[in-house]
């Protein structure tokens, strides 16, 4: 589903964010991406979601070489990738319903279908009662769940989450990760970037570890040890 082959990313100014990064994530797999701040986690997610272009190397998503994608095709590729951010990225002047409905409106789904699918997505994140609320009326955890509902509402095959539990307490963090597990169980490929090693250790999923742009480990974290590292 996601395939990185010797990917390098150098930002203008010469900062080398990723060095020779290679890994594959199969369809329906769930994995964590970890490392210290500045290790290159966000850069890696940005490359998958076409917010950045690699300086060299190859990235394939669903057998499509991202380097071959033209500017006009980018939105259509992004529709197949659900993105979740630490800062939620919600539209402040729109209700929860409007925020979650946005990807469906963009796709041109009928109003009747939008109502149905938004209700289902909000039900999954336990926010069905907050339909008419504005983001500022919600807690941090609720806003994060609205972001998740928006990311899954158009049923994308891939979910990318950048520090989705960054501002949440441990219980809420676990709830959010359980939600990702549910989506993964339904066949969605999930990649979660986090520096919460405690959470990673508890979940026992494959973990990709970056250090200063280099992939230093690829395996399951048990306690704080990495098993089967590549």
């Amino acid at each position, binding site marked *: 589903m996601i395939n990185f082959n010797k990917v390098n990313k150098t930002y203008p100014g010469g900062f080398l964010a990723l060095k020779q990064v290679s890994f594959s994530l199969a369809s329906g797999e769930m994995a964590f991406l970890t490392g210290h701040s500045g290790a290159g986690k*966000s850069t890696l*997610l*940005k490359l998958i*979601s076409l*917010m950045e272009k690699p300086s060299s190397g190859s990235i394939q998503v669903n057998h499509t070489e991202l380097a071959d994608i033209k500017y*006009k095709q980018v*939105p*259509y590729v*992004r*529709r197949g990738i659900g*993105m979740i*951010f630490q*800062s939620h*990225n*919600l*539209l402040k*002047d729109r209700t929860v319903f409007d925020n979650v409905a*946005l*990807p469906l*409106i*963009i*796709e*041109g*789904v*009928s*109003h009747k*279908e939008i109502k149905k699918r938004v209700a289902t997505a909000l039900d999954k994140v336990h926010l069905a009662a907050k339909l008419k609320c504005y983001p500022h009326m919600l807690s941090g955890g609720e806003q994060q769940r609205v972001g998740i509902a*928006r990311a899954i509402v158009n049923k994308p095959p891939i979910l990318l989450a*950048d520090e989705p539990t960054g501002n949440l307490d441990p219980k809420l963090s676990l709830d959010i990760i359980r939600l990702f597990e549910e989506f993964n169980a339904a066949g969605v490929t999930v990649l979660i970037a986090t520096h919460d090693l405690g959470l990673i250790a508890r979940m026992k999923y494959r973990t990709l570890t970056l250090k200063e742009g280099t992939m230093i480990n690829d395996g399951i974290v048990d306690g704080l040890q990495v098993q089967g590292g590549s």
Partner: protein
Amino acid sequence: MSNIHSSGLKARSSLLTRILTLPIRHVQQAIGSLGNLWRTPFTTVMTIFVLGVSLALPATLHLFVKNAQQVSEKWDSAAQITLFLKLSTSEKSTQNLIKRISLYNEVAEVRYISAEQALKEFKILSGFGQSLEYLETNPLPATLLVTPTQRASQAQAANALLAKLNKEREVDQGKLDLEWLTRLDAIARLIEDIVLGVALLLCLSVVLIVGNTIRLAILNEKDAIAIMKLVGATDSFIQRPFLYSGIWYGIFGGILSCIAVTLLAWYLGYAISDLTALYQSNFQLQGLTGSEALMLIAFAVVLSLLGSYISVSQHIKAIEPNAD
């Protein structure tokens, strides 16, 4: 196989739904953009006023030129050639000449004023009635007033006709006072050129004003645009509300300019009627016709749409989403 078939059907029905919902989405975005303008009333009203005034100026000048042309056309058609016949010309020769001139393609009408009739009119108009009684012979020649056709009324054609008429052996002298008409034509052309120049500048200002207003609106919505791009919105989807805003600006600006021009024409109409009445003329200032008003509004929409299109195509592409 049946899965492939059903998925194909689903894709087709999905495409059909999208095509069917496209006009609804356009209407929703058009109404939504109207709502956005409503939420910023001060900026919206100011922009509409600036557009209205900018368009009202060339529209008023157009009205001025239109009315001037109408007056000039009346004078054009009134252009006549006066042919003074030789004193020796007999009545029979005069009648033959009238017949010949009437057959000219360039001539619409020929009116004959005999020497006696000319003297009679002169007595009445000059106020020398008594003194003229003492003349032994009538010094005035018989005259033909030749009215050229519409096509032959223009300066060049009328001069050519005069030259032709002067060659007739019975004609002593022909006169055509075209200088004032030529000057009027030149002034009208100059005013038309000025109007065109001013109109072009003001139209450019309309494009720039709308472009800048839309640019500010885009910058104001920068974060929302970045989020929309993140969830897969195409540039055209993001552009649409801004383009509709441009259309609304054009419609309201155009309507405002129509109202302004109509009010101005109505206000000046009385003053001009009073003035022309002093010259025994019943001239009425013509305002904007229905089709001209519609054209003005359509023109305003085109200009505003152009301004907003330039702005969106420049700025929306430049906004890129950021995951931070």
